[in-house]
């Protein structure tokens, strides 16, 4: 009798009827070279302490291991998200629209997550849940009935990589007579949103077109010289927070100039540094000149 391991494991056929080179047991031996059976290659743990025992899904991206385990997501065995539903996950890798950075897109029937740069975000952008409110603004130029919707946007550089569906339209359209349209919207709570886009109708129209885009969650800074200027309690101060020559527009959350004040836009010099404001205008491509309504 001569036995060479040239065949395959076979437990379906009677052990005396299989081919001479076949075998009835073949455990932990690899058979990649004809005539040889070698002990298989080994294995090793990559983490010294265990993560959640219910590892639903593994995904490797750019050398990082992402484990969806239990109620958490791990990046190289370090938790980057928790409190998720414990269910079978599935995931793909793909780049966002207009972007070249790979993302992981994953879901489990209850949670939808996007992972980029080791940070977990929601997959997709939820539409704004609150309709805008409209009033007549401080400018001029628009006449007719107008309504507005707005969306949340994620931009990478100058490119839009994701945009939400629009909010509901304002409950009450604005009727303007050579006025500007002031819009109040709700800032996004989703940290991946970078911009808010305003869409409005044509005069007396029903279709919404892009009007303006503003950076999300911009906080504007007002400067004041003395600490006591920050107080709202002293009626001697001219307006709002601090000592400012402006009128508070509570509806629009802005500080408007008095009509008697000279506008930067009307000045011949280019001095824009004496009053504080955002380092870069959040308004694009149009909208009210930020120098006319100074937040």
């Amino acid at each position, binding site marked *: 009798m001569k036995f060479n391991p040239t065949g395959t494991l076979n437990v379906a056929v009677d052990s005396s009827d299989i081919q001479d080179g076949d075998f009835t047991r073949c455990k932990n031996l690899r058979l990649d070279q004809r005539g040889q059976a070698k002990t*298989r290659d080994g294995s090793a*743990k990559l983490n010294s302490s265990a993560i959640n025992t219910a590892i639903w899904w593994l995904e490797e991206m750019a050398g990082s291991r992402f484990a969806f385990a239990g109620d958490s997501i791990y990046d190289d065995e370090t938790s980057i998200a928790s409190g998720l539903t414990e269910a079978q996950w599935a995931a*793909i890798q793909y780049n966002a629209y207009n972007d070249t950075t790979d993302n992981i897109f994953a879901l489990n029937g209850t949670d939808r997550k996007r992972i980029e740069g080791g940070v977990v975000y929601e997959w997709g952008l939820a539409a704004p849940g609150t309709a805008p409110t409209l009033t007549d603004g401080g400018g001029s130029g628009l006449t007719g009935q107008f309504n507005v919707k707005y*969306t949340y946007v994620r931009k990478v550089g100058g490119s839009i990589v994701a945009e939400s569906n*629009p909010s509901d339209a304002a409950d009450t359209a604005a009727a303007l007579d050579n006025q500007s349209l002031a819009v109040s919207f709700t800032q996004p709570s989703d940290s991946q949103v970078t911009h808010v886009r305003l869409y409005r109708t044509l005069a007396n129209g029903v279709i919404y077109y892009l009007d303006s885009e503003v950076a999300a969650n911009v906080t504007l800074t007002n400067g004041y010289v003395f600490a006591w200027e920050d107080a709202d309690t002293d009626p001697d101060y001219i307006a709002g927070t601090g000592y400012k020559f402006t009128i508070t527009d509570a509806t629009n*959350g802005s500080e408007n100039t008095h009509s008697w004040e000279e506008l930067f836009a009307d000045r011949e010099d280019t001095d824009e540094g004496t009053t504080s404001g955002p380092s870069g205008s959040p308004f694009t491509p149009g909208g*009210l000149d930020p120098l006319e309504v100074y937040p």
Partner: protein
Amino acid sequence: MSTSTAPLDGFDTSISDGALGTEVSITNNRPPLGSFVFGPAYDGTCFIIKDNLLYFCKPKQPEAWPALNFIEVGVPQFPGITGVFFNGQPHYFTKNNIWFIQGTGAGLFNPIPMSSKTGAQSVRGAVAITGRGIFHTGPDGIYLYSGSSDVRITEPTLEPIFRGETVEGLPGVTDMTTSWLWTFKNHLYFGYRGTGTYADNILVMNLETGRITHYTYNDGSAIEIRAITTDKTNDRILVGDATGFVRVIEDNTYTDDSGTAITFELQSKDFTLQTRKHFPRWLKYDVDASSSTTCTGALLLDGAIHHSHTISGSRTTRRRLVGTGNGNREAVRISGTGPATIYAVESE
């Protein structure tokens, strides 16, 4: 100078109608709360399975899933389980069937039921390989669907274990819903649950030669594999086990399983003589056991170990005498722990 801050949550516009931009899109819905996602397809379309519905996103926009971008596939009683691409087209699997998703986009996708024998039993229950077809799991084995046929490839060699029978130490399959298929470096891996709770046995098939072997992992206790993926950056397989560890397997830089020597076992067929019994007198083992921890050769007569020898060194083929005995069937078994290479065994 000190400062105070205020959020900007409104603005004022007086842009003329003629200067407005594009129309707002109302099809940027978030993805549905499905159970499985696969893609992208060649045109950048991704797919999500939710119950018996197959949703698809806008091409190249994995964050925009129009509410009406879905097709109904089969009946609700048999929801989709998984999906793969084969020949560039998506294939959708229920427990019992394969659906070919014909078409190229919204309004054009059509689910065509294939005459497959079964579907897939788990989210990792199907893998597509170019030129071969789709390997998928049925309740009674692994099938290969090639478009024109659906063949149970485990029928000739592994059939009994899919009926739950343990054969020659190879545990029967006790649950296909926790099984998985994976491919890596010209091998098909099938993990299944034998005695544990998750896949504690792996069958490995060389896709070129069709040769099948059986792996188990043990680092002091049996390792049950729940999840598997390919680390393309480092060209290796990663698995997640049922104790919360991520492991690399099939790594030739390791010769053990996290410090535990690998046990191996190989047993020949039962050799028979047509008209007479075997009366073996000696054995020669052509085995390189120079690096192994232990290595034993055994002669089996009629299924029972008749004589065993300790094997050491590299390919030392001296004659090893066997005690007196005879039997109708003669087989040899080589087992041990640690690295070893088995070339041949001869007896007379």
